[in-house]
C-alpha cells in the first residue's frame, strides 16, 4: 500500500478533500497532526490547503515551525515525495524547502475559480502521469498566490525546468483569465532541484472526481500511486 500522510495544521481546510482524493486512487491515506513528530512510515507527504494558524503574520510563516515540520523536512531530505497545495505551497516556501514567496494577489481580491494551466514538468512523482505540456483545468482558491522570486532565482527555475505548472494565457476557447494573481512568469507551481518537492497553488484534490465537475487533477494522485508501485523509477531530476 502506498501510505500518504496528509498533515493537518490548525486552520487546514482541504485536509479531507486531499485524503479522499488520495484514497479514491488507491492510497492508504491518513492524517498527521501538526504536533506529531512521526509521519508513521509515510511514502508520500502532502501539506493541504487552508489557512494554517489563521495566516497570521504571513501565510505559512507560523506553520513552518510546527513540530511535524522537522519530520517533513527529514522525509524530503531523504528524497521522499512532498507535495504542498495552496497553503501547503506557502508553507514550503516559508520553510525554504522551495524558493520564492507567495504574496497578496495583484488584484487584491481572493480568487476562487477554475483556471487553465499547463503541466511543464512531467518527471516528478506527482506529475508523471501527465503528458508534457498537457493543459488542465483546476480550481484555485487563494488570496495570496502571487509567486515572486528574485530575478536570478526566476532564471534558475526556468533554466532548470523547475516550473511544474504554469497559468496559460487565455485562448479563444477558454472563458477563464490567465494568471489569476499576477505571478511572475505565470508560475502556478514549482519543484526543487531534485524534483521530489512540489508546490502548486491550484487544487488537484478538488478536481479528481467526476461528481465535482472537474477531473483534471486526478493525475497528481494516479502519478504518485504509479511511482510507488514502480519505485525503481525513483525520483528523477533533469
Amino acid at each position, binding site marked *: 500500500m502506498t501510505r500518504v500522510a496528509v498533515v493537518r495544521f490548525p486552520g487546514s481546510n482541504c485536509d479531507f478533500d486531499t485524503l479522499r482524493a488520495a484514497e479514491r486512487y488507491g492510497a492508504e491515506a491518513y492524517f498527521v497532526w501538526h504536533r506529531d513528530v512521526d509521519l508513521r512510515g509515510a511514502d508520500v507527504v502532502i501539506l493541504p490547503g487552508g489557512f494554517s494558524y489563521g495566516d497570521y503574520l504571513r501565510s505559512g510563516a507560523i506553520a513552518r515551525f510546527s513540530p511535524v515540520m522537522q519530520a517533513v523536512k527529514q522525509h524530503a531530505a531523504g528524497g521522499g515525495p512532498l507535495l504542498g497545495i495552496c497553503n501547503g505551497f506557502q508553507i514550503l516556501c516559508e520553510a525554504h524547502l522551495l524558493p520564492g*514567496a507567495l504574496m497578496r494577489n*495583484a488584484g*487584491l481580491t481572493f480568487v476562487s475559480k477554475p483556471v487553465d494551466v499547463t503541466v511543464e514538468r512531467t518527471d516528478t512523482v506527482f506529475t508523471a502521469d501527465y503528458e508534457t505540456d498537457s493543459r488542465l483545468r483546476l480550481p484555485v482558491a487563494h488570496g495570496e498566490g502571487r509567486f*515572486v522570486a528574485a530575478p536570478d532565482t526566476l532564471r534558475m527555475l526556468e533554466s532548470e525546468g523547475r516550473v511544474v505548472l504554469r497559468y496559460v494565457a487565455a485562448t479563444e476557447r477558454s472563458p477563464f483569465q490567465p494568471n489569476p494573481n499576477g505571478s511572475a512568469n505565470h508560475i502556478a507551481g514549482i519543484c526543487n532541484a531534485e524534483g521530489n518537492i512540489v508546490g502548486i497553488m491550484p487544487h488537484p484534490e478538488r478536481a479528481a472526481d467526476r461528481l465535482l465537475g472537474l477531473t483534471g487533477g486526478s493525475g497528481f494522485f494516479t502519478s504518485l500511486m504509479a511511482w510507488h508501485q514502480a519505485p525503481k523509477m525513483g525520483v528523477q531530476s533533469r
Partner: protein
Amino acid sequence: MTFRVHLRVMPRDGLLDPQGQAVEHALTALGFEEAGAVRVGRAIELAVAASSRGEAEAKARQMCDKLLANPVTEDYLLEVEED
C-alpha cells in the same frame, strides 16, 4: 533590562504592492491629489529582555531574519529603546 523594539516591515522596493496602490487610489478619490507612492507594511512592537541595547538589537534582528520578516519579499527597520 527590558528594551522596547519597534519594527517596521515593508514590502521590498520594486515589488508590486497592490495594497499600497489601492490605498493610493482611495486617497486620490477622496481628493488628496498630493498623495503618491503609497506603500503598506506592518508595524510590530515587542519587549526584549537583554543586558544591553546592542544585545537587544541583535536578538531582534535574529527574530526578524527567522520569522518576523520574509527575506524574499520584505525589508525591515528596527528601533530599540529602553523600557
